[in-house]
């Protein structure tokens, strides 16, 4: 009996002494789910004083939104639509991506030389390098933006995200549009959110979120904020998270875009 007890005690003791899995003591930060998905950025450069922009181009952009609802849309707008930063954003992206100066100009993934299907095919061939997700919170005269960006492929280099504030239904003039001075402008970028904390100035080139050798699964949050105009209805506010790879000469290469 005594011997049996010794064996039993040893067996149980060995079981208890068996190693358990160690875990990190760091507490996880809230992170959003990010889908392994590419979206095409379908955009146009347009001007409120341009007749073609208010006629066929306005309709073409609206039709494109209807026909490809799962893509990301931006109407880079030239002209005064309410003292927003739309003109500065227009100028920046036109210069950075060599978009032709004539309006209207349609371009896909910030490349004026390819059509939508070519842009989609190129992204499909490359696979999903990275994607993002966001939630936003309206806080008085500020909009707080919580972003999560995730890499799905092992990558190398410098990667940036630009969280452009997009407003729908801005009432402003549009030449040659039937609604003339009361035209509802869709998908207009009016500002860029900046990281909370004030360590970085707002930048249309975005913010560096990964650099060096990047493992698949690398996930990073970035909390940003931007001013809110009281005239904007909640349902008209959204963000387009543009994702870029920064080349060695400082130029940006479009990788992916996300909105909701």
């Amino acid at each position, binding site marked *: 009996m005594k011997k049996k007890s010794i064996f039993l005690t*040893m067996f149980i003791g*060995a079981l208890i002494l*068996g190693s358990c*899995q160690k875990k990190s003591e760091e507490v996880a930060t809230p992170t959003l789910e990010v889908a392994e998905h590419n979206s095409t950025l379908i955009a146009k450069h347009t001007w409120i004083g341009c007749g073609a922009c208010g006629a066929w181009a306005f309709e073409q952009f609206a039709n494109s939104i209807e026909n490809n609802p799962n893509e990301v849309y931006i109407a880079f707008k030239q002209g005064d639509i309410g003292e927003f930063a739309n003109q500065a954003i227009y100028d920046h992206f036109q210069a950075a991506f060599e978009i032709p100066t004539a309006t209207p100009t349609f371009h896909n993934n910030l490349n004026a030389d390819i059509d939508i299907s070519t842009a989609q095919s190129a992204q499909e061939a490359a696979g999903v390098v990275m994607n993002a997700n966001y939630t936003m919170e309206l806080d008085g005269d500020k909009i707080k933006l919580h972003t999560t960006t995730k890499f799905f492929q092992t990558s190398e280099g410098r990667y940036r995200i630009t969280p452009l504030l997009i407003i729908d239904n801005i009432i402003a003039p549009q030449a040659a549009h039937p609604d003339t001075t009361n035209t509802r402008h869709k998908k207009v970028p009016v500002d860029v959110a900046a990281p909370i904390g004030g360590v970085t100035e707002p930048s249309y080139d975005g913010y*560096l979120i990964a650099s060096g050798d990047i493992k698949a699964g690398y996930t990073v*949050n970035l909390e940003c904020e931007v001013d809110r105009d009281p005239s904007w209805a909640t349902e008209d506010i959204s963000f387009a998270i543009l994702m870029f790879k920064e080349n060695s000469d400082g130029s940006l290469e479009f990788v992916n875009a996300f909105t909701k």
Partner: protein
Amino acid sequence: MLSRSKMKSTFLTLLFLCTFALSFGQIEFGPKAGYNQVFVSFSASNAPEVSGNGFNSGVFLQKDLTDKLYVGGEFLLSLRTYNEELSFDETVDNIRVRSESFVYRAPLYLDIPVFVKYAMNLSASRYSSDKLLSFYAGPQASIYMTGSGSSHETTIVELLDQITVEPTDVDFTKPELKEYFSPFHMGIVAGVQFSLSAGLNFDLRVTRSLISTNRNNAMDEYGKVNNTLLQFTVGYNIFGSKY
């Protein structure tokens, strides 16, 4: 170093000789169980030494060849659990990325040591036996039976005065573990045993794997893996000669 197939054939020859020897005369047989302390080493120079533990239980067989020389063998189920810890810390362009990775592995082996034992009686007390103290050594075959394992990695990214902590948990499946662990490996065993006249014996041994315990095509970040095992067991001779 001997190849895996040569080791296998040498071991089988020894096992046959032991079985042959055991077939003549009285067999000592009994259960034994105990504790494993595992020391895991990796071939990569930057790899840390890790340790773990587990338990073992099984049966032993033994037969005397002369009054001081014995041959024996065992069948032991032996669990070796350990955590591999990997860490990473790099800052590029003011983005600091740290990661802490804990890979837990718990393989269960059937260990079959075969050894030659030299015994001596050092005490005249009434509890001592003719084999109070014995030393032994021999080869050991280890067959991977089953196992469990998981990985817990936490990545911490610091940029623009903001921090992201992202844990990733992965439970390894049985086929993944089977792909990782070598199905069979050889080692050498050496130890010392105290045997009491009542049939109880206490055994302390060291086993070292001679070939890697992970498969060649499944090398982890630190390369080939070898185990050193420190085992303490208690056994009881249930029939055959009492010492």
